[in-house]
């Protein structure tokens, strides 16, 4: 989905709020939220792709104003409700207030019908896919051409794995793009490497 989470290359954001030695956690509840979602994955309540997708499905206003760990927590709560682990009413009763959840999921999809094996040096183009469900293709590479640098081990295919759709594991290709080609005329020169699933690629 072309969601608010797809931040790469969006303009208008200011300076990074950087401090040396910045911490990961700022409050005890953040440590707990992080542990609870990781535990839920570990005991099989949901997988990492479902977890990421539930964050992407958050209302954009909520997404932008929530801290990182509030987004984790919202995903955890959403998936526990959707999977029938805990009813929303019980969470709200226990929490003493309303509990914002992410929007419902759209259908996922399986692997591309034909997938090609690439080797380092091959020129590849990212397909012009638009899907309503989960996808791990940042919008800024859609339709763009790059060069394959290496191949990864096979991973679960996120577009299927986030939706309970059967699929084969497939490799990702480390594809090297030039920032000047990703954003012609409005970027600084750099090489941008992206791990792109095989199903998203065609030979250029």
């Amino acid at each position, binding site marked *: 989905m072309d969601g608010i989470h*797809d*931040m*790469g*290359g*969006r303009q208008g*954001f*200011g*300076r*990074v*709020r*950087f401090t040396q*030695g*910045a911490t*990961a*956690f700022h409050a005890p*509840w953040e*440590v*707990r939220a*992080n*542990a*609870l979602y*990781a535990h*839920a994955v*570990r005991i099989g309540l949901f997988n990492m792709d479902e977890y*990421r997708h539930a*964050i992407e499905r958050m209302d954009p206003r909520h997404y932008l104003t929530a801290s990182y*760990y*509030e987004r984790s*927590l919202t995903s955890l*709560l959403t998936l526990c409700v959707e999977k029938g*682990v*805990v009813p929303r009413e*019980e*969470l*709200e009763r*226990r*929490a*003493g*207030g*309303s509990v914002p959840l992410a929007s419902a999921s759209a259908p996922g999809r399986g692997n591309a019908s034909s997938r090609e094996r690439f080797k380092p040096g091959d020129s590849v183009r990212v397909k012009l896919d638009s899907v309503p469900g989960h996808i*791990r*293709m*940042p919008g*800024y590479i859609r339709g763009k051409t790059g060069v394959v640098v290496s191949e*990864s081990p096979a*991973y679960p295919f*996120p577009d299927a794995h986030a939706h309970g759709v059967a699929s084969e594991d497939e490799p*990702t290709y*480390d594809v090297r793009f030039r*920032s000047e080609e*990703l954003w012609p005329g*409005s*970027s*600084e020169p*750099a*090489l*941008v490497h*992206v*791990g*792109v699933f095989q199903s998203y690629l065609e030979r250029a």
Partner: protein
Amino acid sequence: MPDTNRAVQRTASVEARVDAIQAALDERGLKASEAVEELGHLAQEKWIPENGARVVARAWVDPEFRKRLLANGRAAVADLGLAMPKHHRHLVVLENTPKVQNVICCTLCSCTAFTIIGLPPDWYKDLEYRSRVVRESRTVLREMGLDLPADVEIRVWDTTADTRYMVLPERPAGTEGWSQERLASIVTRDSLIGVARLEAR
């Protein structure tokens, strides 16, 4: 029933929401509170940048290890007793040189090799870093205190799959003859992400 409608209209605080799910899972026998103890401890005490620092120091002094690390990061860090989650099937170690600066990010969420380089700092997960570092990396790095010479090529690595990255910073001048422990002590988390270079201190 006392005023339940009003109670449901106010959004519960994040702490109350965490309390709610933790208690609900505990009540179903899913051992949430035990997990908070265990995983909270791991996240704060075990998954720390000192792990990555140890890997870097070893790579600086041991050319064979360095070769193994660059060829198969996951296997090489396992040799040092460092584990990665099952779904992190691949660790790619990115070697900086005088003319190449690697920097990692995750524009879609905030993925990192957290067991090796530590859980990501707040700014790594913020909208500013995620939106800008792929498009205006040189300016972003300069704003963060790393002013690279114009002839240094920047390579940005967006963590969009379950391959994980770690930057191998350059060994600073003036550290000849140092022990691995002393070398590891100067390796920072920010240098493992690629937003800082190192100096002897």
